[in-house]
């Protein structure tokens, strides 16, 4: 028997840790029937872990879960789905080649008496569902031919068609244009008015404030506060997300930080109205001896921009220039020869785990130290210098790279660009996943490079990374540069507010 007065979903004392690291501690969370509930917090605050518990992805946790008053404990994502919980991930899981109708009915296709797919019935049901949700698409076209926003709406329709009473949306607006966001919101309101509930996870605070009925803030694995949206504003949320007033927490970042911009320094790399996969009309200037930070939340386009600046992806429009001369990057080798260096966000895509340290260091300077024959003795000597200068542990250039710890691997990734200094160094998420000591080391190294007149670009989705390194900051949002902080001071809350 379901209890009419009980909330649709109720969590009590939820704790979860991964190998000794606490991800959630003592979280009490309720979701009422017919509400849109916003979840905000920084990366790693615990939102995703909580949603994965609700959706049955994480099965081992402490605490109690009730759905409509009945105790529930999912054994798998499938049992959560059977209990009426659906999740739409940030990375869409549609099958691009199949039609819209097939995607909507994926796994629940109607069959006729012969056990074959009932195509007319499937089209009819898909059409009815899409009409009910106000999604104007032809169910017969391949879903891959639709814009991303519509694909996302169709995926939400699929989750609803499988009978979900609770729909969890992870960053649903990050890839959408403003009109698409409006369509999504219309859909979400209709879903809510039909008595179903939505959990809306997002970094876009305006979106959360525009659509949600209640908002819950997470920080460091704890639920900080839940409030109805009418009573709060953006400042209220940011204060709770970053914990202003708790001096022991991240004191260095809540305060104002001086920006050390050097507007007079010569421009090294300039980018004029550059467009490419993931970014549009980006103009920027990187100056000698200055660290330019580019901040944006996940999917805002700054990581894509960094790849294009290293010639990994081609520009579809706009111009690049280096030292005032036009620059065309046909591939990464051309970028390297032009004096551009890049450290990607993932170590795995930068390093050769099976090879010794010295070969990892020498790969990007091989054509400078040897023409035909490799010179391992020279390579080892160069690598040895970097290993000592950067304090790489253990201090052996013969060790297979894969046996080094993550922080030391990151230093090797940096070392490969330090022998012949580049004109421009692009660092993507340079401190991701590092402990405090290693982060300070990176800050020290980057400052040192800046002093030598290199134009450094730091792109990141973590405000701390940009704030601790940059002399000037651009904020990107939905593929475009939205704001620049140069000179004066900046603080984390202002950065978050701009993104």
């Amino acid at each position: 028997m379901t209890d009419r007065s009980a909330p649709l979903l109720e969590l009590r004392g939820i704790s979860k840790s991964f190998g000794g690291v606490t991800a959630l501690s003592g979280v009490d969370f309720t979701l009422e029937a017919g509400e849109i509930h916003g979840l905000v917090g920084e990366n790693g605050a615990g939102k995703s872990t909580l949603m994965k518990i609700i959706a049955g992805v994480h099965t081992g946790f402490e605490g109690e879960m009730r759905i409509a008053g009945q105790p529930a404990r999912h054994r798998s994502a499938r049992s959560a789905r059977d209990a009426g919980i659906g999740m739409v991930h940030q990375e869409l899981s549609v099958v691009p080649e199949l039609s819209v109708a097939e995607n909507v009915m994926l796994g629940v296709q109607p069959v006729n008496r012969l056990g074959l797919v009932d195509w007319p019935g499937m089209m009819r049901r898909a059409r009815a569902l899409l009409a009910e949700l106000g999604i104007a698409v032809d169910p017969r076209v391949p879903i891959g031919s639709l814009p991303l926003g519509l694909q996302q709406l169709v995926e939400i329709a699929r989750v609803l068609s499988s009978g979900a009473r609770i729909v969890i949306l992870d960053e649903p607006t990050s890839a959408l244009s403003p009109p698409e966001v409006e369509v999504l919101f219309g859909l979400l309101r209709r879903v809510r008015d039909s008595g179903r509930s939505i959990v809306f996870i997002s970094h876009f605070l305006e979106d959360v404030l525009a659509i949600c009925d209640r908002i819950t803030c997470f920080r460091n694995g704890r639920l900080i506060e839940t409030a109805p949206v009418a009573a709060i504003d953006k400042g209220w949320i940011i204060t709770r997300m970053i914990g202003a007033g708790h001096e022991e927490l991240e004191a260095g970042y809540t305060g104002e930080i001086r920006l050390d911009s050097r507007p007079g320094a010569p421009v090294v790399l300039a980018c004029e109205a550059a467009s490419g996969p993931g970014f549009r009309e980006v103009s920027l200037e990187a100056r000698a001896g200055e660290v330019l930070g580019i901040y944006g939340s996940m999917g805002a386009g700054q990581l894509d921009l960094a790849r294009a600046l290293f010639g990994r992806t081609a520009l579809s429009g706009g111009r690049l220039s280096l030292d005032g001369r036009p620059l065309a990057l046909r591939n990464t080798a051309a970028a390297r020869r032009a004096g551009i260096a890049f450290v990607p966000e993932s170590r795995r895509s930068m390093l050769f785990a099976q090879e010794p340290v010295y070969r990892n260091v020498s790969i990007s300077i091989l054509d400078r130290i040897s023409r035909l024959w490799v010179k391992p003795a020279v390579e080892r000597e160069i690598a040895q210098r970097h290993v000592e200068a950067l304090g790489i542990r253990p201090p052996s250039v013969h060790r297979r790279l894969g046996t080094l710890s993550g922080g030391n691997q990151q230093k090797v990734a940096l070392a490969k660009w330090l022998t012949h200094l580049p004109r421009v160094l692009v660092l993507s998420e340079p401190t991701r996943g590092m402990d405090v000591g290693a982060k300070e080391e990176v800050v020290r190294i980057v400052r040192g490079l800046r002093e030598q007149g290199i134009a450094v670009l730091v792109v990141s989705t973590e405000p701390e990374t940009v704030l601790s390194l940059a002399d000037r900051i651009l904020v990107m949002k939905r593929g475009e540069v939205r704001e620049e902080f140069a000179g004066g001071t900046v603080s984390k809350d202002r950065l978050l507010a701009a993104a």
Partner: protein
Amino acid sequence: MSTSDSAVLPRSGGGLRWLQGQLRNIAPFATLLVLVALFSIASPSFATLDNVANIARQVSVTAIIAVGLTFVILCAEIDLSVASVANAVGIMVAFFTLQDQSVNIANIPLPGAAAIALALLGSVALGAVTAFGVTVIGIPSFIMTLAMLQIGAGICAMLVRGQIAYNVPAPIELLGSGSIGPVPWIVVVAVLVLVLGHVVLSYTRFGRYVYMVGGNREAAEYSGVNVKLVLAAVLIISAVCSGIAGMLGVAHFGSAQQDEFDNYLLDAISAVVVGGTSLFGGQGGIGNTVVGLLVLGVLNNGLDHVRIDSFLKILIRGLILLLALVINVYAQRLRAKA
């Protein structure tokens, strides 16, 4: 610092781990020793100097093809067109040579040097087409070289039209079927190509790029290596090695005709993989290929000495290749863990 502790840890039980990491090199060598021992016991005619020379001669053509293939497989690509290209280039060189009256082929006789140069150019062209398809158009090498296999067969068919040509230029004749004292020239050429391949892979910048592109293609790209250029180069090298093997092979067999090299695709791939070069790229080398060639050569030759059902022989070769593949994949996993 805690990081130094964790990095030192793998040293405990280092002996076993080292062995695991070396499995891909040890297993083929152990297989070779076992096979030699077995056949020596089973047949008095196996372990003779004459027979060693036989084995060397028998694997020479495969060896030249396998050198080029080693480059390709080290880059985590595959070339299925090697035997077909060898056949086509072998026929090309005969096509440009004066044939006897009895041979009814509308060929174009040229001086020997020109014939050889044109045939070599032909191999470069075939390799370049493959390289273009793989690197510029983006066709997976597995499919692209499958198409090239068919194209090579087509060139063979068009040039000889079901006939057999016998004459090749004198230098090719000498290198393919002549001897220098007791040693056949083709063995000398095979050894030279193996040594050259080893030197290029181990001691040159290009060789290093081959290993790095095979080890982690994305990382090579992010290090500013021109990955497509490296891939194009290894595919052309493979075609040229096949071309050389094809020309000498035609002289070695004494005739140029269609479908002459059909066994060599499987033999060359087997030699590289049985030797322990990783199918996932980045690990292995010519040393491995030499051991793989000897395993295959000893197996083929030894089975002839022990009077075994010739149909069973085919099955046994298949099983050996399967075993090598299992070890190859297993070794990759162990090394990734070690």
